């Protein structure tokens, strides 16, 4: 490389460099059933934000298990139940990428 940054491992191979692309992590939290959570991440201003949801303790064959909705407005991420239904406990990862 003629410019940029390469960080090497002790064996001499490149571990990470400015040729790479990544998503960084802003937050991770668990939302209780039927709860609404709203967080603002000002440090991610100008970046693309996504929220990955993962259901917790999905009971096999026994109930409708609704994941909460996620809305992203600017740097504010809001997690809330879908309209008219109860939402289940859910893990939320908030990721950011400079785009």
């Amino acid at each position, binding site marked *: 490389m003629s410019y940029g940054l390469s960080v090497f491992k002790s064996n001499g191979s490149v571990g990470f460099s400015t*040729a790479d692309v990544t998503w960084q992590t802003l937050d991770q939290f668990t939302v209780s059933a039927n709860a609404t959570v709203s967080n603002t991440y000002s440090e991610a201003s100008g970046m693309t934000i996504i929220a990955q949801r993962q259901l917790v303790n999905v009971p096999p064959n026994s109930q409708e298990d609704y994941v909460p909705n996620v809305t992203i407005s600017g740097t504010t991420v809001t997690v809330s139940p879908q309209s008219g239904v109860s939402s289940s406990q859910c893990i939320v990862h908030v990721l950011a990428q400079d785009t």
Partner: protein
Amino acid sequence: MSYGFEAINNNGKVIINDTIENLHFLGKATRGGSNSDYADFPTYSGAFDSLIGRVIHYYTITCTGTPIVFIKPNDYSRWHGVIKQSVNGTTWSIDVIVSGTSTSNPPDLYCFVNANDVPSSTENYGMQVFKSNGTTKTFDSRKQPLAITGGGNVIAPTDPTNSTGLPTSTGGHPWNYATNDHDFRCSNKYNQYSNTNIDTTDTMFSCPSLAQAVYKRRMDGFKQSQAYGQPTQNHYSTAQWFCMYRSAFRLRSNYFDAGWAVYAAGYSFSSSFEDGGWFGGGGGSYSTGTMPYDPKTINLQTNAYIIADSSRYD
């Protein structure tokens, strides 16, 4: 910036700084066992019996943080999805559904967390970046930071079943009629998304399974008989097949597919006839499985997926 650290990649985008944390490789989750079922409808044999099947593999990994899980298929022809992630203390349990019934070639789960949640490294070579508080690491080159190769947004089709149109409930069938006419397999119902960075050697993906669906086919049968000098005697029957699905994903060369995997299934049959006529009243029934809720697809929302090269972390 007036102070701190920032690394800009070849595309002019920030990939390391001192305010937002990078993800780092925690390790591979340990597989503890698996459960295989639903090659076909339980207790039913006849037309459209096959369901292809599914395996649920059970994994654990210990971590103080909340891991982001990447699935590295070891059989890229099969559908995969993380259907559950829960924690007890610092032990995370992760359940992965895989289409088919063979428990061989289970996927590997690569887990990523913040640098502070990765166990300490004895290596004294590399680079660390801290937040302004001086204690929270945003980056640690010794702990294999996550580099991705692509991603996008995906959604599965609403109808998971191979047959055209959703299964229905119909009457007017002969008494005791129980021949399924709907293909509940889900192998050809998916949306494909082009991604030239996907190969079927080392690509792994992160995209939790959120969508669920339940559908049934019900057939009501009827017959009326009458013996000489006797009142009419009605005979009723009901045959019902149901299948529950979870969204699942498949990696093909240059494509990311969003589709479904069978999660559970059941079959029930009942038959009865009124008192009087040729015989006295009576009947019987049996069933396997309990349909979890009325037929519908839920949680069908656009979902972000991320892909990366697993070989960087082996």
